[in-house]
């Protein structure tokens, strides 16, 4: 059973080094980015999310659309548990994993092999579990002898292959993504696509932020449209995409 429930969740990000006079007693509304505001003490903050109510259940494939700065990434971070809402509550059941930044924690000085363990530990794979999957991961990224070379000697594509192979070796209940992952050359990207689709089959909830209409319509069964940190519209992909993308 997987479930994420946000109740009146708000995120206000304080900015401590921008305590300028002009911002102090005024509230701006700017085109991109959330609303900037200030509290009584004169601290400037960004209203990244405002009073969000959202329930994501088993089987949901939720797409998030919206302009840059609408709060998509912040929402994903809240859903992943990295951000606690400054107001309101989050309830999460089930193991979640994020494919938002697959190269997170990859150390260029360490070898490919060491990085598999490093990245694996961050994904919550224990040593034993990782050992079992190790061969499969190495085979999948197909790096040959380079697996024992420092990652700094890799090409960008090779780095992504490695990061992708480890990051997708988990089986979470909830999967968070920022755009679809496509890595490597033509041959590898087909392989990667299949692996990702297979991973999606076993995940109970998918949340994906995207600017691609085709992707949203293909993958999702539910869409929310974010604007200025609020949900502007919610519904089925076809309907919302029609309004949003025009």
């Amino acid at each position, binding site marked *: 059973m997987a479930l994420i429930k946000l109740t009146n969740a708000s995120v206000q990000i304080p900015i401590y080094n921008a305590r300028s006079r002009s911002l102090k007693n005024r509230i701006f509304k700017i085109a991109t980015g959330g609303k900037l505001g200030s509290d009584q003490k004169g601290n400037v903050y960004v209203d990244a999310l405002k009073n969000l109510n959202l329930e994501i259940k088993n089987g949901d494939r939720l797409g998030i659309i919206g302009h840059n700065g609408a709060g998509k990434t912040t929402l994903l*971070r809240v859903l992943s548990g*990295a951000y606690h809402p400054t107001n309101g509550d989050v309830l999460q059941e089930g193991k979640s994993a994020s494919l938002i930044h697959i190269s997170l*924690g990859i150390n260029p000085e360490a070898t490919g092999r060491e990085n598999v363990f490093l990245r694996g530990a961050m994904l*919550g794979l224990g040593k034993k579990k990782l050992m079992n999957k190790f061969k499969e991961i190495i085979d999948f990224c197909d790096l040959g002898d380079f697996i024992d070379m420092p990652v700094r000697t890799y090409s960008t594509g090779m780095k992504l292959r490695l990061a992708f192979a480890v990051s997708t070796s988990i089986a979470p209940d909830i999967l968070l993504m920022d755009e679809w992952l496509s890595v490597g050359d033509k041959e590898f990207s087909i392989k990667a696509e299949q692996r990702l689709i297979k991973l999606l089959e076993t995940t109970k909830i998918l949340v994906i932020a995207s600017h691609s209409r085709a992707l949203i319509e293909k993958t999702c069964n539910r869409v929310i449209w974010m604007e200025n940190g609020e949900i502007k519209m919610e519904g089925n992909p076809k309907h919302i995409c029609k309004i949003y993308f025009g």
Partner: protein
Amino acid sequence: MVKGSYKSVILNWLNLINILSINDIKNRYRRSFIGPFWITISISVTISCIGLVFGSIFGSPMKEFLPFLSVGLIIWLFIGAIIEGGCNAFVSAEELIKQLPVPFFIHTLRVIWHQTIVFSHNILLIPFVMLLFKKAPSLNLLLVIPGFILLLTILTWICIVCAIISTRFRDLPQIISSLLQVGFYVTPVIWMPSMLPDRVGSTLLNANPFYHMIEIVRAPILGNFPTLENWVVCISISIFGWIFTFLIYNKTRKHIAYWL
């Protein structure tokens, strides 16, 4: 989290801490020939130099002074590195904190474990120093175990508090590093308490928490008993410190990610 999987979750966290710390150390010595043993070499050079210079300035017998200096300096460096590392613990882990939903103490324990590994490289030097001056270990050495655990307990909360406050107030690391420099001179590391004039001495010493923290580990290694006062002060620092830490952690936990 799913019920019943707490044990595996905790094991995963420990695994993560271990891998990150080892990686931190490896990174530093990645392309060097003798690797982390540079730590041991550099401290032995420092000890020999300080030992020769200050030993002759103070006119203290080397047989007493050098073991005292070696043990004290190694412990002092351990304390200092954890406090300074603590100040950067969250700031330098910004990427991880914003992406990875792991508890914050992982990032501070990473600093503690990293420095403990460094400490274990440094402490290898002590048997050689003892051998050099033909000092046989006594049963008091066993007291080093509770002493070190108590020291770690204190340093762990200091590390967490420093990490939290330095993330919010970026001036703190600068203040702390100057305080540590002063601390080094007012704490008996390169000078021995017996060199102080009687009256001034005991006040200066007993008011200095670093003195007690070092003493509970140093005294047993040198074959002495830490005083009851050393123990009482350290235990109190530990208890009150942890209460303070829990309060501050509870209050700031939800905000730390936004301060980065």
